[in-house]
């Protein structure tokens, strides 16, 4: 099976204080610690496990700058066979539709039975998988938390829906799936693994190679424009309730009743 996994290099929100740059047009990217978008690791792990069962290759692809190469190498150290970097100044400022258009062009250069994305990334939009599927006119399912390959045309998938409910479906390949965390346990990548793939050649494709239309990608094509960023107010911290246990609880109940938390 030929599997393509779309990954993204993102600021690690657990490691960074995120602040806004001086002109308010973006977050301040100096000195940020970056990592692979967490959901993508689950997608790559799932792809590797499928390949190990049924054969084939796993290719990881990302849209980004030169520094995004490091996330491709990390995923190759996990066990992905190939990496492709999609990079071009013309891609800068793309919105979700633009990124999906670029990925669509890259997907069209291969013959992929299965395309995986993480369920969402740092911007929390959860949109690329569905857009990519629509552009490729392939079936799509989101928030997939189990995959069973039935034969070379069919898979059984589990999806997490609201209220702790679970949906089981059959889906025809080729298809696009967005992967939810918890589907597997992504393997650990050691420094040794990274070294092993350090010199593997990673091809870079730009707008011309991919024949991506400037009206779809880049800031000119973006219909979604960020106007402003702000840091949400932190609040003053909790009012700590004092006294004996009964006293604390009485106070809490009174406060919650007064503020509408308890009805």
């Amino acid at each position, binding site marked *: 099976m030929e599997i393509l996994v779309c990954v993204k290099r993102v600021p690690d*929100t657990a490691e960074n204080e995120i602040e806004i740059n001086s002109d308010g047009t973006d977050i301040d990217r100096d000195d940020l610690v970056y990592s692979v978008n967490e959901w993508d690791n689950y997608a790559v792990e799932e792809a590797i496990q499928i390949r190990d069962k049924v054969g084939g290759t796993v290719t990881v692809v990302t849209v980004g700058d030169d520094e995004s190469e490091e996330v491709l190498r990390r995923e190759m150290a996990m066990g992905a066979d190939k990496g492709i970097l999609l990079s071009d100044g013309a891609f800068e400022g793309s919105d979700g*539709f633009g990124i*999906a258009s670029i990925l669509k062009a890259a997907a069209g250069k291969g013959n992929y039975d299965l395309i995986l994305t993480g369920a969402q990334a740092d911007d929390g939009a959860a949109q690329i998988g569905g857009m990519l*599927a629509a552009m490729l006119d392939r079936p799509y399912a*989101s928030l997939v938390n189990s995959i069973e390959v039935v034969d070379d045309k069919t898979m059984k998938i589990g999806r997490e829906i609201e209220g702790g409910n679970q949906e089981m479906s059959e889906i025809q390949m080729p298809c696009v799936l967005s992967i939810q965390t918890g589907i597997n346990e992504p393997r650990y990548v050691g420094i040794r693994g990274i070294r092993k793939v350090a010199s593997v050649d990673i091809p870079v494709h730009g707008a011309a190679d991919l024949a991506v239309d400037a009206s779809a990608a880049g800031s000119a094509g973006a219909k979604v424009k960020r106007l402003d960023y702000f840091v949400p107010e932190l*609040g003053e911290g909790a009012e700590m*309730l004092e006294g004996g*246990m009964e006293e604390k609880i009485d106070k809490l*109940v009174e406060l919650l009743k007064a503020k509408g938390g308890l009805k």
Partner: protein
Amino acid sequence: MSQPILVIAEQVEGVLRKVSFEALSAARELAGTMGCETYALVLGNEMEAAAAELGKYGAEKIIVAQDSALADYTTDAYCNVINDIAAQVNPGIIVLGATAQGKDLAARLSARLKAALATDCLTLRAENEQVLTSRSMYGGKIVADVALNGTPVIAAIRPNTFPVKEAQAAGKIEKPNVKTGDIKTGLLGKHLETGKVDLTEADVVVSGGRGMGGSDYSVIENLANVLGGAVGASRSAVDEGWRSPSDQVGQTGKTVSPALYIACGISGAIQHLAGMSSSKIIVAINKDPEAPIFNKADYGIEGDLFEVLPVFTEAVKKMKG
């Protein structure tokens, strides 16, 4: 703008979800400032009676797309039908809930309609005929104001964020012919946890973290029960296998905005805060007075959750009579 706003209502097992009314109320408010009409669209099987209620919340027209193939959600069928209806209605804005289903649908629909998309919208307004929304990014550390250009645009609103407001409107029901088209996914079955309050729609969420020390969540469940709320968990509790991943509140789990969030034995890592910081009132119970959760909470109790929760549960029971 005279193009109508189209609200896609969401139903589960034939029952409209609360977020559908929130989306309709948000759309109605926006329509008021833009001077256009609001239509609602319901997809399903035998949904006419349930759909009629949408007139009370401001739908001038209620389009009921009925087909046995629409009883359960599939991306293909829903997208095909909405695509056709959008072509007839020509909406300027499409509003729906940023639920699992809503986000699945919105992404595919936006590519089909070449429509600008914003998911998980916290606000919705129009300025100079441009739709503006704010959405949170980077695990809730940043809020971005975003403009959606072109027509139509799609806004998926975060559940429990917009108030439901009654606003009687004509609510004229229309039942167009629908073509579900080629469906390449087949639903094999559903595992429904009936009677369980959905985390993202719950008015109250009681969550337990590492401080639970094990999979016995009975003190949490008891409190959630008397409050009519849902049970959540932090990532570390899920990683330990104490709760199922579907209960996880946080950046890689659910985002919740209940009226009351009670965090028990949860230190308050950014991973967790990302999923609950938009709750209206936050109560934290933790043994460690230095736990970062107290920075985010409105009210804090320093103490052992196993001692605090039973007393709290009894007090709520007494209050509720």
